[in-house]
Structure formats: structure tokens, C-alpha cells
């Protein structure tokens, strides 16, 4: 049993793990109760499990928890809440940019990473930044509008 010290959503957390290689996704969901990060493929192919690690969009399903100690992990819950959504979350709500919503957390987190690097992306840059995030319901057009809305402060 190993003790891992993590910094998640600006809070110091400590977890006990049999296997320090446990992917961060399972630690977030099952040990820390942060279920907004979703399991989609476990193969880094779909983006449903995207979190920020030191500000970079990262697939938590293939990231060993031990590798993110002493780094800042931000999940969808760390961005905002239904009562106080962050600007991207607010834009997704305003555009009703989700159907089943299973992929939504990953898209918002990926969009956060984009806007941190590029506050005013073009539509093409938004599309490119989300190219690795899959959506099956077909909410893409609304998602693009939401990210542009957040970036433009509309």
C-alpha cells in the first residue's frame, strides 16, 4: 500500500493505493468522489476523461496517479459549480451544448486548456483543439459556439 499525495482542485488530498500505477481516472472517481470525469475508452481515444494537469489537457484514463504527485490536477468540478459556473460552463449552459452530456466534462476541460493558451481562438482553432474529443449525440455545433462564446465574452 502506497500513500500518494495529490493536489486536486487546489486542495491537498492523500490516497492509499495498492497499485501506484492506478490511472488517475479511477482515483478521482472512486477515491475522491469526483465523478464528473468519465470513463469512455481507457485508450486515450475519446477525451471523456480529460482533466488539466498543470494547465494541460490530459487523458486521466492512461495517466498513472503516481505520475501527477506534486502537480496541479483540475477536474470539471474544479472549474465551477451549477451555482457558480466558470465562463465556459456558463457558455455551454447558455448554448444548451449537451445532450446526454457524457462527453461534456472532457470538452469543457479541453476548452479551458485551449483558452488558457489562446484567449481568442478562431473557430478552426476550437475545432482543432477538440479534435480528440468524441461526441456521439451530435452536439458539436453547439459546443463550438459555446467555446467561441466563452472566448468572446458574449
Amino acid at each position, binding site marked *: 500500500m502506497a500513500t500518494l499525495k495529490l493536489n486536486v482542485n487546489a486542495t491537498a488530498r492523500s490516497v492509499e493505493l*495498492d*497499485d501506484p500505477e*492506478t*490511472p488517475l481516472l*479511477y482515483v478521482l*472517481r*472512486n477515491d475522491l468522489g*469526483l*465523478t*464528473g*470525469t*468519465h*470513463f*469512455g*475508452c*481507457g*485508450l486515450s*481515444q*475519446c477525451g*471523456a476523461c480529460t482533466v488539466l494537469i498543470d494547465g494541460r489537457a490530459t487523458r486521466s484514463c492512461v495517466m498513472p496517479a503516481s505520475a501527477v504527485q506534486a502537480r496541479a490536477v483540475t*477536474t*470539471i*468540478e474544479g472549474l*465551477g*459549480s*451549477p451555482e457558480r*459556473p466558470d465562463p465556459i*460552463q456558463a457558455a*455551454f*449552459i447558455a448554448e*444548451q*451544448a*449537451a*445532450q*446526454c*452530456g*457524457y*462527453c*461534456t*466534462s472532457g470538452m*469543457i476541460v479541453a476548452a479551458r486548456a485551449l483558452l488558457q493558451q489562446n484567449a481568442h481562438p478562431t473557430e*478552426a482553432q*476550437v*475545432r*482543432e483543439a*477538440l*479534435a*480528440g*474529443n*468524441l*461526441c*456521439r*449525440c*451530435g*452536439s*458539436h*455545433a*453547439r*459546443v*463550438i459556439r459555446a467555446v467561441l462564446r466563452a472566448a468572446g465574452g458574449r
Partner: protein
Amino acid sequence: MAVTRRDFLKAGGVLVVGASLAPSLGRTQTIPNADRFLGKPLEADKLDAYLAIHADGSVTLFSGKVDMGTGGRIAMRQIVAEELDVRPERITMIEGDTALTPDQGSTAGSYGIARGGTQLRQAAATGRQALLALGAARLGRGVEDLETVDGVVRTKDGRASVSYADLIGDKAFGVALDPKAPLKDPQRFRFIGKSLPRPDVPAKATGRHKYLHDLVLPGMLHARVIRPPAHGASLKSVDESSMAGVSGAKVERIESFLAVVAEREWDAVRASRQLRAEWTGGTPLGEHATLFDSMRASTVVREQPVTRRGDTSALDAAAPGVRTLTATYRWPVHSHGSIGPSCGVADVRGDRATIWSSSQGTHRYRAAFAKVLGLAPERVRVIYMDGAGSYGQNGAEDAACDAALLSKAVGRPVRVQWTRQDEHGWDPKGPPQLLALRAAVDERGGVAAWETRAWLPVSTANLPHLPFLAADAAKIPQTQGRATGLIYQNIDPPYQYPNVDAVVRWIPDAPLRTSPIRAPGKIGNSFAVESFVDEIAALAGADPLAFRLKHLTNPRGAEVLREVGARMGWQARSSPRAADPKAPIAAGRGLAYVHYKHDETLVAMGMEVQVERASGRIRVTRVVCAHDCGLMINPDCVQAQVEGNILQTLSRALHEEIVYDRERVTTVDWQAYPILTFPEVPAIEVELMQRLDAPPLGAGEAASAPVAAALSNAVFDATGVRLRTVPFRPERVLAALAGRPRSGF
């Protein structure tokens, strides 16, 4: 009106009845306080099955139809708010819980609003009438002197009023649904027809929405199921020492049903990867490469005429000047492709079970789960929780059955999470479709005769439910058979050609297990029919829009087609477009039309594409859709469904095909089975026709039906090459451009 008021036992200010089942069922709804309703009436013809008004004036709505992300959660509230005269925000909704909601049939076939919502509307209208009658008695006035507004019955002069809460709070109405209860005049709609925001989106956008996948029960174990390496293979032996390194994981085996359970999810994952098992035998799958040839050569179980009128003999004995045209269209096997692999949670204890599932048919599957568990259906409660979008029957019911068998075996609650490979490999698939078309075209370009022959895998009559993978593996008897949905619809042209013969040739086999997938059959059928109409128009040298309008007698159909033409700036000319064949990019436009299921939603769709000749890559630049689904409760939710239908079907038409070898599906991840990505998404323009006086016809599927045909027609317009086999992947387009249309098979 005399209201029969049978007060239910009142305890603690909540509605309680003494039905015998209530105590035996787990109190386990995730909606706060919902289990206080256990024992309430569930009969679909009773008002109390749908609605309860509480002492604080709030309302609980019990819906057998569920919201998989489609907007029913707000639309159902709008319906009740409108007809009952309460504010939508005062309404709590409970969905798809067999212990709390009436059985309104599966949430399928685009009938959520069209049937479920219509039933609910009548329930709310019945409730309003009952409240008016109660108010009349309380206020000592005639019903004709009263009106309802925001949860209050009041006199029309405004002098006296009484709240719904005072009249009925937490008591049962005790009345049957009144099919004649007057509905509100559309001119007075306050909530129906408004694009109110969906209540679930804020939680979904902030990671707070609780999915089935997030459900944790006290003492719950995590499980992974190990499927055989070949379809139908039997488990010979399991080497438990192979996972000895994972402490806390345990093997569970029932015949050939093999799983590992563990306290911690990651341990279950690790154990399932390490576990060594020996399998034997199996049932070889058909040859994927020759799938369509074998369909065409197959024995036919029976022929089913879908449309027969006039005389199609011109096809075989063409008169002078009459040209005949033939073409064959192929639609491949698809996965539902849910972004979250299926999950199931079950708590089976002794003689009762509670199962949480994202199934679109919790009521239907209750008896199925009960049978597999050897329990009476009354002892089983199935509770709907949101999963990832399912678009038909994905692996949800199978995962629930996995969990139920494992929970029964270990005596604790069990959560089964399918892997990505499980979902792509084992979700029941959309069936393949093969359509051969013939037409006789007279010298004026008229369709003298039309023939459709559709080879489609047959559904099993009266199949109680899709057979479970786990039950088969565990050798638990269950009725075998296939379900596909109503895949025969829309095999005929939606135009008034005088001589039409459209027949389904039902064939016994399908390469894999099948189930309904969004707009079952209608996408592939419309792909064939509306592409072929375009082929005829091209042969006749006619403009594809004018050619369709000429024989379209349905005025609402003509309206959506004209609307698309106007929006696109459609220039009347024949296809293909005159263009430089050496230009690196060929651009074109196309359209298609469907009258969904022959008498439901009407959709016209136009598409603009660019085809890169060197790579064979198709870029869809613009999609224009005009959509008439009758009354729209919430137009923005309809719009979202239309956008989703368009993009999901573009994905299926451009990219998707399930491939298998003789043992199993080989396209088991998103690399092998790619779907549409953000950079490919076209501009989408949707024109929604609101019909306040017409019945709602459904929006969940119809707009997917014309997508592949509009796409194929646009590619033809651009290149002069006709794509008749989905998906339109670059290698297939290149082969077609090079004049090798059937390459790649």
C-alpha cells in the same frame, strides 16, 4: 363533474398506499424522497399514475418515458405545466422506475413526446378538470365560473380562490384518464412551444450530474466480465493463479459466464486483464467480405409487400423509348457507438432485486431480468438512470443482466462496467441492409414503374426481449431470436408514381446480434430510395428538386422541400454539375426527402460537399434541413435532435462499419471504428415548422433518414460518380472515381 375521492392512507404528509409490494422493494431512488411514493398507482389509464400534487403546491410527474439527453425532461414538464396550469419549476420528474412510473412502452421509435407526451398531456388535462370540480365544490360556484392559473382555482371575477394544494395536496385523485378532457387552446399556450432550458444541462456542464456509471451502493463490488475470444465459445478452464498478484479480486463463474469482482474497481480491471482462461469451440461468423452477396443469395423466410400499386410490367417489357435503370445499395453493420460503455448495477437479495440501468425500456426488461434471476416480476424493480446516449438498444440491458447474475452469486450489490472493447465488440448491432432497385423511365422522364427489393434480417415475432449475452453464457434458458426494429419502412418512394412494387425479402440470418439502432432501417432504406430517385432524375436530365416536387402530393412535404431549396439558393439544373474533371476539388449539392415511417415527420435535407479528387476525401461544408414534426413542445430541443440526427448519420455514412473475422468483431475501438470529429462538422441550418394545432409526430429519428442520400446525391453532383455503398471512406471514393465502384469488397 363528480370526482371520486378515495383518500389514500396519509402518513407523514406524504402519499402512501398499502400495496403489498412496497415494503419488499429496496428504497433506492436517487431522486431525493422519491421512494415515499412506493405503492402508488401505476396503471397507465389512471391519473395518479402520472401526477401527484403536494401539500406545498409542488407537483411530481411520473413518466414511463425517459430522457436520454433528448430534452424530454423539460418537454414533459412543459406539457404538464401547460395543461395543469402550474409553473414548470414546481414540477419534479421521476422517469422509468418500474415501481413508481406507469408503463408507457419503451422510449423508442420517436414516440417519447408523440405518444408518451400526448398521454401525459391528457393526464394533466384530466387533472385540471378534476381540480376545477373540486374547486367548484369548495367555493360553492359552478365550474363555468372558474378558471385555473399557476396552481390556483379561482373565480373568473377573481374574488375567490383556492390552491391546488388545499384541494388535493398529497391525496390521490382516484380518477381515470379522461380522453375527452379539454386541452388548452394553442392560442393560449404559455409553456408549450417555448424553448425553455433543460434542467439537466447545468449539472452536466459542471460535472455534478449523476450518471448510472457514478452510482455507488453500500457494500458494492466492482466487476468486469470476460467475454469469450470467439462467439459462442465455451469456457473450458480458468487459471485463478494467473491473477494472484491482484489481492482482493475474485473469480465468479457460471458455466461460460466469467467475471472478476473486487472491492476496488482498478483491481477488477487488472484482474480481468491478467486472468487466463481456456475457451473451446464457438460458432463461426459469416464472411464479412461477402456479406452482401450472401444476403442476396440467402433463402427468404417470407416476402412482405410494403407498397404495391398499379402495374410494373414496364420494367420487364419496356415499350419503345422507355429506359430501365437498376442499382443496388448496401448499408453496413453499425454499432450504437455510445461514448460511455454500458454499465449496470444490481442488488439481488433473496427473493427481490433492484436493478439500475440506462435501458430505454425498464418496464419491458423487468420481466426479463426476473426470469433470468428466477424471481417473480413483482419482486424486481428496475430504475432508469442516465447513461451515455444509447440511440437504441446498446449494451445497457446486457450489462444490467451481468450485474444481476453476479449480485445474485455474491450476495452483494455489484456494478458492472463494460470496456470500450466490450461495447464495440458485443453491443447488439444495427443490421446490414441490401436494396436492389429498378425503374422504367419514359421518354418524358416520368417514372413509368418502380420496384424495390429489400433483403433485410427478419425479426422474431413476439420476442419477449433481446436474449442476454450473460444468460446464454450461463446456460440460463431464454427465448432465442432477433430484434431489429421496424426496418422495412420507407423502402418505397415518397412520390405518387403510378406503378410501384416495393417488397421486403426477409432473410433468416444476420452476421451478429442485432437490435434497433436510431431510425431503424429507415436511414439505409431512404439512402437507397432517395439516391435512386436522383439517379432517375439524372437519367431524365431533370433538376432533382423539381423532379421530386412534380410527384409530391403531400403539401407539408412540398413545403419542407421548397424551404430547403429556398434556403440553399437552389439553382434549377440537372446533375452532375458541369465542371472541370481535372480540378483538384469537385464541389456539388444534393438533397433528399423523407416522410418518416410513411405518415410521421416530414424532412427535407440539402447538402453541399467538396470532394478532394486526389485523396477521395469528402468534406461536407453545409447542411440545410427543413423539418415538420407537427407540434413542437420545445423547439430548441427539437433543433438539438435534428442537429444530432444530421451529425450522427453523417458519421455513420462517412466513416462507420463494423468488421468481423470468423470469430469476433475486430473493430473494437475508436481507431478501428472512427466517428465524426470536430474538424469535419459542417455548417448546419435548420428550419423548424411549428404546427401548434397539429399532433406531435416525433423528432428523435426522422432527420437522420435523408442524410446519407443527400450526401450521396451531392457527391454525384460534384463528381458524376454514384456512391451506393456506405461508408463513403476515401479509399472507396477513390475507387469509385477511378471507375471501380465495387472495389473494397
